[in-house]
């Protein structure tokens, strides 16, 4: 059972997955990009997505086994420490000229961001978007570098650049349901090991590490 698995995982799992299983080979990126790679026949053993609909879709297409929800997350607004645009609440994003960076449509964090803005009645804020990024870590980098004025990321991403960004919380009632689901890729040559990995994700050790990184209980 000591097969080295190839795991395609959401970019927001970049820091925590190697802590859970250091030996695996990881390819982190936007979940939608990873799903497209699986559809094009990329060799992989496990797919871990920052939403449930992408693995469900692959499951319906017969490409992966039944997905398992293993954790949850929340969205947060981040601004560079220097806060050049003077943003102190999500409603400040309406100011003209704010350089807002978000995930692209189709990228989980991009879709969640649009849900949050809609829930807050801030759809018009999208006119301040200066870049649609391909995964959450690109959003994080552009804000942490100080190039963008603000960006929406997961709570867990913001924790990885503490000291370089300030965070602004989003009220609970506006939060989307951010569930992560993992599934065994049916074409895997290490099916048993892949199933064991997915099973272990909901086990106590992995759950403790996910919580330590700021992820939420899977409920």
């Amino acid at each position, binding site marked *: 059972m000591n097969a080295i698995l190839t795991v395609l995982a959401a970019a927001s799992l970049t820091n925590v997955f190697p802590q859970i299983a250091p030996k695996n080979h990881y390819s982190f990126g936007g979940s939608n*990009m990873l799903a497209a790679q699986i559809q094009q026949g990329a060799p992989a053993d496990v797919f871990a997505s920052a939403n449930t609909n992408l693995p469900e879709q692959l499951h319906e297409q017969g490409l992966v086994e039944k997905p398992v929800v293993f954790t949850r997350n929340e969205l947060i607004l981040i601004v560079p420490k220097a806060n050049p645009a003077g943003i102190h609440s999500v409603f400040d994003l309406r100011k003209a000229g704010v350089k807002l960076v978000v995930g692209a449509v*189709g990228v989980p964090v991009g879709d969640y961001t649009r849900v949050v803005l809609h829930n807050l009645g801030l759809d018009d804020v999208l006119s301040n978007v200066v870049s649609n990024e391909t995964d959450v870590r690109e959003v994080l980098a552009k804000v942490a570098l100080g*190039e963008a004025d603000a960006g929406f990321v997961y709570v867990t991403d913001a924790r990885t650049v503490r000291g370089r960004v300030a965070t602004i919380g989003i009220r609970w009632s506006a939060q989307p349901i951010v569930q992560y689901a993992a599934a065994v890729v049916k074409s895997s040559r290490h099916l048993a090991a892949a199933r064991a990995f997915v099973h272990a994700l909901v086990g106590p050790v992995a759950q403790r590490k996910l919580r330590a990184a700021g992820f939420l209980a899977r409920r």
Partner: protein
Amino acid sequence: MIRKGIVWIAALAALAFIALPIVAIFARLSFGGLSGSVVSDALVVSLKTTFAAQALVLALGTPTAYVLATHRFPGRSLVVTLVELPIVLPPAVAGIGLLAAFGRAGLLHTGLPFTQAAVVVAVAFVSGPLYVRQAIAAFESVDETMVAASRTLGAGPVKTFFRVVLPLARGGLGAGEAIAFARGLGEFGATIMFAGSLQGVTQTLPLAVYQEFDVNFHTALALGALLVAVSAALLVTLKWLASSSTSTFRFAASSSG
């Protein structure tokens, strides 16, 4: 005979390897992939930024190349190496470098990132050196006796440059510019890092291919086919220019000999 057969098999395998991905793009192409605002917006952004960048490359690169080709000074080879460096630099490094230099938090504190001007800067940075390198070679191969003759006949340095040097170097300059144009059109890494990706503003054709890959594979294929067609047209132009440049050189050699 056996050895000859192996050579043929190797050559055919290599040809198939190069042709297959290009053929596959067109084989899997479906009609309608090119409709939609993503494609037209990306095409407009790509054309605007590529032409602006190449205008910049020609305007600044031509005098730079001429000075480097006609002057010998200490440290010249170092300068030439520096000019050529972006050619071999990984695009991601170019992107980081541009951010570190021209980013808001960079050395010069410009507000360039996320603007269309940032795309122009990224494209000029990665493609310009290809033109300059070729232009230096083109200017160096201009027959000095032709230049001297022009000066003896009373033409000033500026007139000599435009009437003698430029026409003689034309083929080489055109070939260099075609390569730079093609490289600029395909620019991806430095652009996405330095300029970001926003439809209608900074999203060029290659960036749109990348985004559409997971949203709509058919659109990505159509965009890919569009880029193949434009690039192939460029290559044909390049070959045509290269052949016209050899005839120019032949003319120069015979008349000076």
